[in-house]
């Protein structure tokens, strides 16, 4: 009796074992062809145009949808970053700008197909761009910055040709078509799900993808994960072949320590939002690849509301700028990971460049700070609050403590306020905060763009509530300045006003630390400050 059972057991377990081995071999194979990306954030819509879209949603849409054109890449200090000045065709096989700069003509790729197999036509492109400038979507405000405001500007010439007319030559029109929002949608599919109340199929496209991009979304669970498979027919990448990874998993892992563990053990391939301290530890262990790119289209500020006393006094602002412990803050908040925008020397006292942002000649000098306070008529100092949002606590909290400590030395009493994210954005929008830290980012970073959007008007992004007629005039003029030398001179003027008036204090450009397993290749820092999954491959 026993031996028979025994034999059965052995053969059964042999079958089981071989099945397990085969399964695990298959799993290892599919694991190697899968990119697992972990992040604190979450993809909350498949259409990046929906108000409230997260940056992760932007990133996924870069892979699931094509645009007419896309940005190239360039090397900055040995690291690959996006390049605004090289624009290549994505769905457009070729494009041309008329000599007067008023007409852009796009020839579509004849072989491009949507995920359901139907060809991409100029009609689809027109519908998608019309939607972007007409429907209540995020793209509207973005395309406005490139003089694209009305559906009349997009004209179908033939099934593969589209013409865009501009009211004036605008150097930002073409780059705007490469940003996140002007996705090209399968218009037939989308229209079949449109309703009279929702003619642009906003609610359907939010949860369903109808693109032609490198990846086809398979699973979409907001707050948990999004999974996409490769579109084998996609050939819009620079080497004219499909993306490298067969599968893409974007997973939400809220705890930063867990994300760090996952990447370190090789269970996840890539994370870009680890804590600076973890990044440093992982880098020193040397097992992983860490690519640190200064976010050259972003700036972190200490902002002062120029309309709220005592910050309406330029000498108070100068005093604060001279009393900030820059080096200590840079070390404590960022562990030195980023590009400082302080401690420069301007030998002749004028800005050396017309770019934005540039390092300013500010440094910790308490004597000078006291002198400025005296000049402002407040030698005894004053009391104020310093706010930051909970979401930024990891960097802002140590920074706030140092600001408080240092300003106390010149008599400014600082009360630290930590606000929930929504409350912080509301208070900023209502211009209620006198003194706080915040950051900005521009997708199309150019000097005039920064000054026009972040230093003018009574709107949320004008953190310092700057209202300076001269600055506004120069920035508006620079907007359509075709002459490069003149543009540079205008930029220098703007930078000089900024330094002289010290509206707010640019601190640094934080680095984006992409931590990845050693065999991952091709990472490029993108304007979205997210990963473009199409760039990546395994060595």
């Amino acid at each position: 009796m026993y031996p028979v059972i025994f034999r059965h057991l052995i053969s059964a377990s042999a079958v089981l074992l071989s099945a397990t081995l085969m399964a695990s071999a298959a799993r290892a194979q599919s694991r190697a062809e899968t990119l697992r990306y972990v992040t604190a954030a979450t993809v909350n819509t498949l259409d990046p145009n929906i108000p409230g879209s997260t940056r992760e949603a932007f990133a996924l849409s870069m892979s699931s949808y094509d645009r007419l054109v896309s940005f190239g890449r360039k090397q900055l200090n040995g690291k690959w970053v996006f390049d605004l000045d090289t624009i290549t065709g994505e769905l457009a096989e070729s494009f041309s700008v008329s000599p007067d700069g008023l007409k852009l003509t796009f020839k579509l790729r004849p072989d491009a197909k949507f995920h359901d197999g139907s060809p991409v036509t100029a009609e689809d492109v027109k519908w998608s761009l019309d939607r972007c400038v007409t429907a209540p979507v995020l793209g509207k405000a973005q395309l406005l910055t490139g003089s694209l405001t009305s559906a009349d500007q997009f004209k179908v010439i033939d099934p593969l040709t589209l013409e865009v007319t501009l009211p004036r030559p605008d150097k930002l029109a073409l780059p705007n078509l490469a940003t996140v929002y002007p996705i090209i949608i399968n218009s037939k599919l989308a229209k079949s799900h449109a309703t009279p109340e929702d003619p642009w199929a906003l609610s359907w496209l939010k949860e369903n993808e109808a693109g032609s991009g490198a990846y086809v979304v398979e699973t979409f669970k907001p707050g948990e994960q999004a999974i996409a498979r490769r579109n084998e027919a996609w050939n819009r990448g620079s080497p004219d072949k499909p993306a490298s990874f067969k599968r893409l998993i974007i997973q939400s892992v809220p705890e930063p320590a867990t994300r760090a563990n996952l990447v370190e053990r090789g269970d996840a391939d890539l994370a870009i939002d680890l804590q600076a301290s973890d990044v440093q530890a992982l880098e020193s262990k040397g097992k992983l690849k860490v690519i640190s790119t200064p976010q050259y289209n972003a700036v972190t500020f200490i902002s002062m509301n120029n309309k709220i006393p005592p910050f309406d006094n330029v000498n108070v602002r100068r005093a604060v700028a001279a009393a900030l412990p820059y080096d200590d803050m840079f070390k404590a908040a960022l562990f030195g990971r980023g590009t400082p925008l302080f401690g420069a020397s301007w030998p002749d006292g004028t800005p050396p460049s017309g770019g934005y942002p540039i390092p300013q000649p500010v440094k910790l000098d308490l004597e000078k700070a006291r002198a400025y306070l005296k000049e402002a008529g407040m030698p005894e100092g004053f009391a104020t609050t310093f706010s930051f949002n909970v979401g930024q606590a990891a960097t802002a909290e140590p920074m706030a403590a140092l600001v408080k400590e240092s300003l106390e030395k010149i008599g400014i009493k600082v009360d630290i306020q930590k606000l929930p994210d929504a409350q912080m954005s509301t208070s900023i929008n209502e211009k209620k905060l006198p003194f706080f830290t915040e950051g900005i980012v521009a997708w199309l970073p150019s000097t005039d763009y920064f000054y026009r959007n972040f230093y003018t008007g009574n709107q949320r992004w004008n953190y310092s509530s700057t209202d300076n007629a001269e600055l506004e005039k120069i920035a508006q003029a620079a907007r359509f300045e075709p002459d490069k030398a003149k543009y540079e001179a205008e930029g220098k003027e703007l930078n000089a006003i900024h330094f002289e008036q010290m509206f707010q204090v640019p601190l640094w450009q934080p680095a984006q630390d992409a931590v990845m397993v050693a065999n991952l290749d091709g990472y490029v820092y993108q304007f979205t400050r997210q990963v473009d999954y199409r760039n990546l491959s395994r060595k």
Partner: protein
Amino acid sequence: MGTIGATLIRAGRRFLSSLPALFGVLVFTFLLMRVLPGDPAVFFASGPSAGKEEIEVVRKQLGLDRSLPEQLGIYLYDVGRGNLGRSMMTGQPVAKDLQQRLPASLELTLTALVIALIAAVPLGVLAALRPNSLIDHGVRLFCSLGVCVPTFVSGLLLIYVFYYLLGLAPDPTGRIDVFASVPPARTGFLMVDFLLAGDVEGWWAAARQLTLPAFTMALFVIAPLARITRASMLVSLGSDFVRTARSIGLSRWQIVVTYALRNAILPVITIAGIVFSTMLGANVLVEKVFSWPGVASYALDALLVSDYAPVQGFVLLMASIFVAVNLLVDVLYGIADPRATAA
């Protein structure tokens, strides 16, 4: 028969009397969310190029441009029809989100509670049998440690040891390995769904995924359960009927388990009910650490960004569960102690 009927009638009466409380919770949460500083329209219209116009569009979409009483009326009408609104954060209807996430939270909390009870009751009994002995002090030390170490610390510690150092546990990211396939959702409880699908390997994977977070949560609640068991066992062991049982020479097992424990279990059930409801809402840290897609972390994320609908839906859900658990405790009371029903 009579006792069961009486229990049911009492439960029904209790349920009816809790309805006004539920309504109060509904209105109160609604008002509280609107009083909190933080404008969801501003927050959600925060693309890099969003201006005043975008904010107004979002405000209109959310219905926040209407007056407060009007908003409340619409909200109550919607809730009455089972529509809890739409979450801006996930873009999904709140009812669907909660329906997907509640089983995850319940599965975790129930498992943790079972682990905690299995550990706490014997520990409490042991401690009560030898008060002030080495065992008693040992149990006390263990309980204090469990309570003083916050769950996110013990969670991270368990992850560090069992996942990072030893590699025994699967990666702490949610209910199931991302590479594994999910069984057809019948109940939403993965442990049940895998069994229904007959997928033993999947069941085992899900169980492994569940172990660390469940133990983390259990560690935290063992203390109240064990302490209550000990205290009520002490009272019970010192009472007349136990002395009588001893004097007529019943076996030690019979005295301790059948007589003393049965009489001591009432307060433990009450506490277990309360612990369960609290855990369900308060295990947000465990959910965060283990990327568990539960309701508590969902509500916290929503609260941070002033996303009204999910928070309101969550509070309503929690209130309903609290009512349900209290009803259940009442019914269990009747079974454990028939006098409770008679009274």
